[in-house]
């Protein structure tokens, strides 16, 4: 398809990206979402809000994050040049904090003293607990009891930061169930509570709002790439769980028709094994968590359990804007398996001296595959969404070790 929009201004007023997105929630949440959409519309362009966000990015998060030329790895591959956008260098070690700062600032202005969040790997939980501590808010993080077992060190970090981690025992006891539980909390405590969603999913305005806060990633790249290589990249590659780090780097690049956008989903043990989290590559459209998007579901419309070595990609849905970018062919979506991600993880450690998050390692795996077959003058920019410290136990276990 080549009917790319010349100007891109999605979503519409009710949060639609073509047939995707929207507001599919029970009546108890409708008013809260209206209130949020109004507050966000008011503050997103408010000079004082914008200035404070910029200041927080500079002094608390450590922005702008640098771009780094992965010279040795590119050399070994013998093809295109690979560059990393270093979101791993942000405070708390991932892109997640770009969004939690923004939403917490909004919560303060809306007079909500309590924030809640869902988390899978614990990265978004940590980023939320961090800003709650920073602004003196009370914080409850919902986390599936399975994930609590798998991510003990992040649970401890959240507690250190003063958050309450609330185990979720329903459904598959993972990220999607934590999101369900956070929604239920919000419906019950809507008067004093702000729900900080961790990715570009959920009902409108979340997919748009989270994208906007994360778009700082791509905006910086557009400034930095010409300084680094004299032009914009040929490819921008990012891993896709819910899709926030990918939307953050993709969105500012949408109007650049020569820049190819590639999202990389988790193929787990292989798409054909059924044990994966590749909603765009292997799912079908449906309605979950307040929006219409691609989902992993059975023929009866029940959401099925997903698998990925990286807890942060282990989600059966995907942000609705990615669904639209896929259908309109402005972005393409590929996948990398657990073993491909692990191999990229180890290669990155040894050749570049950077320990990447397992989530980001999926993007690295695809970038390496792509680079090999491209000429040396092509440029691939990978969003290195986080660092891998949190993944030590998982990686060690794969090598038969305990840390």
């Amino acid at each position: 398809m080549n009917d790319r929009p010349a100007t891109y201004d999605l979503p519409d007023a009710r949060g639609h990206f073509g047939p995707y997105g929207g507001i599919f929630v029970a009546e108890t949440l409708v008013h809260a979402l209206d209130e949020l959409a109004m507050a966000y519309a008011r503050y997103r362009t408010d000079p004082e809000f914008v200035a404070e966000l910029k200041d927080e990015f500079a002094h608390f998060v450590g922005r702008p994050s640098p771009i780094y030329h992965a010279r040795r790895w590119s050399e070994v591959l013998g093809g295109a040049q690979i560059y990393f956008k270093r979101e791993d260098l942000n405070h708390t070690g991932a892109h997640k904090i770009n969004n939690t700062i923004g939403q917490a600032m909004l919560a303060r202005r809306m007079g909500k003293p309590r924030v809640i969040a869902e988390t899978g790997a614990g990265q978004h939980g940590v980023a939320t607990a961090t800003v709650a501590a920073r602004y003196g808010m009370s914080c409850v993080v919902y986390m599936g009891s399975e994930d609590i077992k798998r991510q003990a060190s992040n649970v401890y970090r959240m507690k250190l930061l003063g958050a309450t981690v609330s185990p979720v025992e329903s459904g598959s006891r993972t990220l999607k169930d934590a999101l369900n539980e956070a929604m239920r909390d919000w419906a019950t405590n809507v008067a004093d509570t702000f729900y900080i969603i961790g990715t570009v999913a959920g009902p409108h305005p979340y997919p748009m709002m989270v994208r906007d806060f994360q778009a700082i990633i791509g905006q910086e790249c557009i400034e930095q790439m010409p300084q680094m290589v004299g032009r914009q990249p040929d490819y921008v590659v990012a891993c896709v769980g819910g899709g926030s780090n990918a939307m953050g780097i993709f969105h500012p690049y949408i109007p650049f028709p020569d820049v190819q956008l590639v999202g990389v989903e988790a193929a787990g043990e292989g798409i054909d094994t059924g044990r994966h989290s590749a909603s765009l590559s292997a799912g079908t459209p449906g309605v979950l968590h307040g929006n219409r998007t691609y989902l992993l579901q059975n023929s009866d419309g029940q959401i099925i359990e997903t698998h990925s070595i990286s807890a942060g990609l282990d989600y059966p849905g995907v942000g609705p804007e990615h669904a639209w970018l896929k259908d309109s062919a402005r972005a393409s979506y590929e996948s990398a398996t657990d073993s491909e991600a692990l191999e990229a993880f180890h290669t990155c450690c040894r050749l570049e001296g950077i320990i990447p998050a397992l989530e980001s390692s999926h993007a690295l795996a695809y970038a390496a595959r792509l680079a090999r077959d491209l000429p040396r003058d092509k440029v691939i920019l990978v969003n290195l969404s986080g660092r891998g410290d949190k993944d030590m136990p998982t990686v060690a276990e794969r090598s038969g070790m305990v840390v």
Partner: protein
Amino acid sequence: MSRISTVFERLRAAERKALIPYVTAGDPDIGSSLDILHAMVSSGADILEIGVPFSDPIADGPVIQRAGERALKNGVGLVDVLSLVRSFRLTNSETAVVLMGYANPIEAMGRERFIAAAAQAGVDGLIVVDYPPEESAEFAAAVRAAGLDLIFLLAPTSTRARIEQVARLASGYIYYVSLAGVTGAGHLDLADVLSHLEVIREFTTIPVGVGFGIRDGATARAICSIADAAIIGSRIIQEVEADPAHAAARVGHFLADVRAAMDAVVTTAP
């Protein structure tokens, strides 16, 4: 006139209020569900809300979540719920049946196909918890064209503009959720409920049922002094949970008490 409207007409003439129990299909198993439905009718239910199991029931509290999980473990889905209604209709053509569930199983079956199958099975109304009016204009039209009622929820947080919008699309009855939160929560504040019902009635003459927080004869009676119907869900599931082998008998027993308490109300025709 739809079966739901007929039920409310008949009740109005008899100066009684509607008793609307909810049960999740497939809990403890689909065979028992049929027995439970008939037991509810014998105990005085006027309209039955049958819950369609969904893996991610965002608007439900722990009790109904657990019922849904048990049903899913039994492999019960939308297709089975429709055959349950067909079986029920073999011996009952009076009691109105409403399916209550979430959008995704419907979309997976295909909206048009689902609506036709529901009408054919003998379903009278639909509640799709996560289809708010903005997202369901087309769906609402198709539901109406098939002769079914589309029932919407209103909540304490619903604004006047919102109530007006919902009132325009709703048919059958309006389901007023008596408190912010999920099913199974909290207790009733009658004065607060009344003030909201008054606003709703400014915009519509269709009956208004109240649910969330009704747990016994006393609360049902209290609600029926101000509303057209009492909707009871979590409390019924608790009866099923307490003794799955005798679920139908227990639910029947519980509802009979509620019915008796409701009928003790002296109603005045509006």
